[in-house]
């Protein structure tokens, strides 16, 4: 399918969405307030784990008039349940629906219902207990204050290892232990690998809890429809159709009575790629009360109770020969998934992703993994840019650096010896890599960093020390339906659909179920359409995120919008172009092959003065159908669906960081950051670079600053921007970006996804650079001053030791079995 870039593909055209967004004309969720709206405020749990003995509105101060209070018993059973089904152990390259359809609940899985409002038990601080409604958005806050909650404390489960202890309190009554799911996968022959590699290298890593934190908080607004039975739901979401399907089921109403609209969305990053219990609740209340109901989150609520991310502890063991060639890897992955399983990814998504991607760009065929998702009394863990990959890359890259150190080899050289160089490549777990430039990107970054010189610099004795480090990774993107079929999660499909139409005046519209929340999709898709059709991008409008007018879509996430959405637009636009040519050929009395379309004008190639504009053709097709060629149906619209390649397409990149460490304080500043990336054909390099820069900034935040902390009794300690430190303009350098281009043979135009890659590399690259500067390996993120300083002083925290985790009997078995 791959073909050379053409037309506007690859052009740096300015973004179409910017005029409205820079001048304040974009309309986000909180900008919408229909007449008669009731504002909703949640009363949230202040305890991590407790039995609710009473919820008393107006106990100490009177409720304001007109206030309505809804508690858990009013909406019993309403909530979110995301279960995991059986997953096949090995993914065959073309495994499809009828091969091995997993329909059974995984016997290892333990279910959790996340209630819309807690009833009887609360399981994390911030869990909603009551919903208070009032027409005045200020008064509703007073009203919420007037609701008293009585608790009877239960012992909370906060610490990951503690959750696995034999006598641990149990987060969900009736569970056998605090494990959502535990999976074991082996590929190849580990015993043989151990014989080939006589050195055993072991590391323990920890990527602490963080959050995606789009700048616009979440929110939703539901309004009863004219029938009184249905609802229109506006929600700040990345997946409006999935919200429609799930919420309509939860409400027990037909799906065509629920219309879901995602207005302008102020950043998503995966955080808004869930169906939340609040969306169910707000819709239900709008139906019951027959009034618009609106809830917008404040920042504290967002940090407390939307979705957290990362929170992994890994242990890795590698069998390595004298040359630094890694023959086999065993890894145990523990993820703190919080109190509930999130829809549609389930609580096992982060832990499950790691075995899938950890080996990534390396040619290692003998591997064994155990991944465990545990339940604790913390906010639920969900998806955030990269999902599991930043932690997986952190671990494998820290392993490569440790191998180099222990064998006295160069860290880049060790990577070179292990990287995949021939494509297509079938990974041990069945993933099939299409194409890539793993070695080239590594070579480019090490050349830019002047690697040998930089590594050889004597660090001794000075206050400020420099360090350099690299990380290499690949990223599965735009995976198709077969890849979801074998995951066992409530996401079953991987396609995208697009409907396009030309209006009578020659302008055109793309209707998409994808959501544009900053990635520039309006521009890139208009660019694809304009390219295929032969019109100016400024004449193409993109309508997004409205289930009322777009084909079904699983939403925008997983770096798939440009690849699959763009692919579907290309196909639909091609169909339109063919029809335009047919009509023009008939009117101009020439053969279709004699025509070309450029800038909205169809001309006879040999006689350019003979022409029809697309507007004239559209007028014929739509309004004056009598002039159509005989037998051709009127109208100019088209619908196309594109499914992703079976196992997706694989982008790759190498990140290189140069840092300066202040040895007196442990403070790290990033001086240079080099990226060599390969996402196949770029649709719009400006947008690609913007995505990379933005992703890296988030990765740098993850590497150095962002951490969501809890006290020992489960109280959140990072619930405002004063405590949860976001990177600002002084923390993130301008990137030096270099592009490589290995087009995918499996996608339209050779495009590969690139939305997440920027956020995947920085943890490992910065850690390598800081380790170089410190002169000791760091295995934990974020690398805040105190942590760096401690390692520099030789203090290794207990939880970074092998023994700390090994003491837990539930974790030891995996290693003893071998």
């Amino acid at each position: 399918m791959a073909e050379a870039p053409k037309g506007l593909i690859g052009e740096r055209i300015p973004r179409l969405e910017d005029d409205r967004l820079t001048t304040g004309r974009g309309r986000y969720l909180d900008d919408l307030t229909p007449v008669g709206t009731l504002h909703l405020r949640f009363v949230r749990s202040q305890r991590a784990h407790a039995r609710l003995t009473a919820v008393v509105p107006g106990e100490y101060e009177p409720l304001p008039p007109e206030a309505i209070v809804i508690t858990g018993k009013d909406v019993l059973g309403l909530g979110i349940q995301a279960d995991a089904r059986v997953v096949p152990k090995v993914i065959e390259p073309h495994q499809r629906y009828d091969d091995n359809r997993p329909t059974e609940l995984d016997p290892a899985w333990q279910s959790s219902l996340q209630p819309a409002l807690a009833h009887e038990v609360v399981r994390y601080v911030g869990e909603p207990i009551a919903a208070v409604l009032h027409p005045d958005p200020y008064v509703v806050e007073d009203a919420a204050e007037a609701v008293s909650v009585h608790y009877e404390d239960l012992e909370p489960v906060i610490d990951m290892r503690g959750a696995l202890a034999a006598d641990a309190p149990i987060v969900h009554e009736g569970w056998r232990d605090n494990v959502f799911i535990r999976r074991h996968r082996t590929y190849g022959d580990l015993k043989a690998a151990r014989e080939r590699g006589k050195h055993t290298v072991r590391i323990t890593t920890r990527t602490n809890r963080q959050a995606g934190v789009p700048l616009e908080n979440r929110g939703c607004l539901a309004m009863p429809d004219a029938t009184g039975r249905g609802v229109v739901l506006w929600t700040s979401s990345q997946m409006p159709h999935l919200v429609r399907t799930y919420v309509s089921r939860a409400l027990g109403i037909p799906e065509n009575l629920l219309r879901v609209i995602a207005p302008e969305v102020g950043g998503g990053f995966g955080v808004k790629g869930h169906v939340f219990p609040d969306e169910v609740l707000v819709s239900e209340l709008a139906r019951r009360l027959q009034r618009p109901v609106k809830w917008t989150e404040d920042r504290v609520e967002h940090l407390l109770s939307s979705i957290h991310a990362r929170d992994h502890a890994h242990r890795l063991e590698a069998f390595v020969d004298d040359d630094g060639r890694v023959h086999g890897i065993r890894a145990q992955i523990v993820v703190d998934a919080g109190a509930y399983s999130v829809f549609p990814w389930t609580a096992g998504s982060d832990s499950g992703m790691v075995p899938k991607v950890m080996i990534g760009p390396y040619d290692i065929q003998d591997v064994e993994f155990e991944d465990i998702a545990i339940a604790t009394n913390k906010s639920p863990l969900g998806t955030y840019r990269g999902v599991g990959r930043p932690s997986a890359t952190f671990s494998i890259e820290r392993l490569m650096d440790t191998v180099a150190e222990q064998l006295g080899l160069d860290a880049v050289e060790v990577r070179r010896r292990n990287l995949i160089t021939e494509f297509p490549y079938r990974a041990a777990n069945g993933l099939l890599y299409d194409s890539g430039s793993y070695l080239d990107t590594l070579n480019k970054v090490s050349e830019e960093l002047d690697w040998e010189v930089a590594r050889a610099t004597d660090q001794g004795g000075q206050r400020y020390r420099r360090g350099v480090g690299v990380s290499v990774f690949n990223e599965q993107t735009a995976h198709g339906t077969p890849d979801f079929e074998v995951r066992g999660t409530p996401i079953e499909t991987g396609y995208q659909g697009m409907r396009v139409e030309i209006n009578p005046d020659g302008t055109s519209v793309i209707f998409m179920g994808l959501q544009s929340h900053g990635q520039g999709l309006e521009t890139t898709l208009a660019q694809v359409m304009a390219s295929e059709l032969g019109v100016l991008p400024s004449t193409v409008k993109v309508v997004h995120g409205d289930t009322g007018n777009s084909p079904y879509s699983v939403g925008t996430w997983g770096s798939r919008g440009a690849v699959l959405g763009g692919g579907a637009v290309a196909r639909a636009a091609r169909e339109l172009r063919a029809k335009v040519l047919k009509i023009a050929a008939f009117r101009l009395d020439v053969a279709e092959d004699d025509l070309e379309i450029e800038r909205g004008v169809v001309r006879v190639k040999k006689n350019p003065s003979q022409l029809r504009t697309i507007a004239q053709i559209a007028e014929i097709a739509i309004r004056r159908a009598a002039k159509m060629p005989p037998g051709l149906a009127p109208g100019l619209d088209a619908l196309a669906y594109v499914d992703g390649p079976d196992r997706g397409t694989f982008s790759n990149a190498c990140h290189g960081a140069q840092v300066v460490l202040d040895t007196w304080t442990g403070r790290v500043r990033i001086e240079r950051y080099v990226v060599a990336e390969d996402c196949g054909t770029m649709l719009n390099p400006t947008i690609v670079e913007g995505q990379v820069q933005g992703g890296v900034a988030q990765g740098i935040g993850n590497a150095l600053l962002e951490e969501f902390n809890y006290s020992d009794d489960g109280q959140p300690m990072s619930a405002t921007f004063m405590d949860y430190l976001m990177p600002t303009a002084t923390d993130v350098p301008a990137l030096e970006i270099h592009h490589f281009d290995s087009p995918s043979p499996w996608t339209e135009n050779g495009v590969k996804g690139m939305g997440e890659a920027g956020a995947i590399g920085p943890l490992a690259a910065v850690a390598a650079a800081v380790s170089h500067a410190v002169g000791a390996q760091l295995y934990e993120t974020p690398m805040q001053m105190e942590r760096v300083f401690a390692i520099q002083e030789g203090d290794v925290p207990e939880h970074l030791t092998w023994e700390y985790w090994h003491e837990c009997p539930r974790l030891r078995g995996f290693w003893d079995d071998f």
Partner: protein
Amino acid sequence: MKVRLTVNGEDREVEVEPRRLLSDVLRHELDCQGVHLGCEHGVCGACTVIMDGVAVRSCLTLAPQAEGTTVLTTEGLGTPEHPSVVQRAFKTEHGLQCGFCTPGFVCAITAMLDDVDEMDDGELREALAGNICRCTGYANIVKAARRAAAERDESDSVIRQGGGCCGEQRGCCNG
């Protein structure tokens, strides 16, 4: 209570409770929904507006404090057809992605535009560090500020349009 202020060139009067935030009044009573709220506790800068020529956080300002002032929001600086020099520069330099932080940055940069040339990159980044952007990684925002400063002319100076700095009166800047 009644509050009178000039917003984007128009004299307005609103009846508010004293506790009401300027950000909410601008957004909900005065139709300036380009004023965005990212944190409501003064850290993210998304709610930044220009009050009497000075960038202020409207989420930390009570509506009564705006009595008698002249307030500019991003809507008042330019329109999609006629964007201001700063708004134009954001587009040219790809200084925005989701656009949620953008009105705050536009106001903050507009208010400091006359000084941008004097700042080195470190100082400029320091000056921008009061606003959080989750999408762009800032590099293009820095470029946008530079470009706007290079391309501006007399008519783009809101400090002048806004009626000058109040200096000692309000004690919020150095005059």
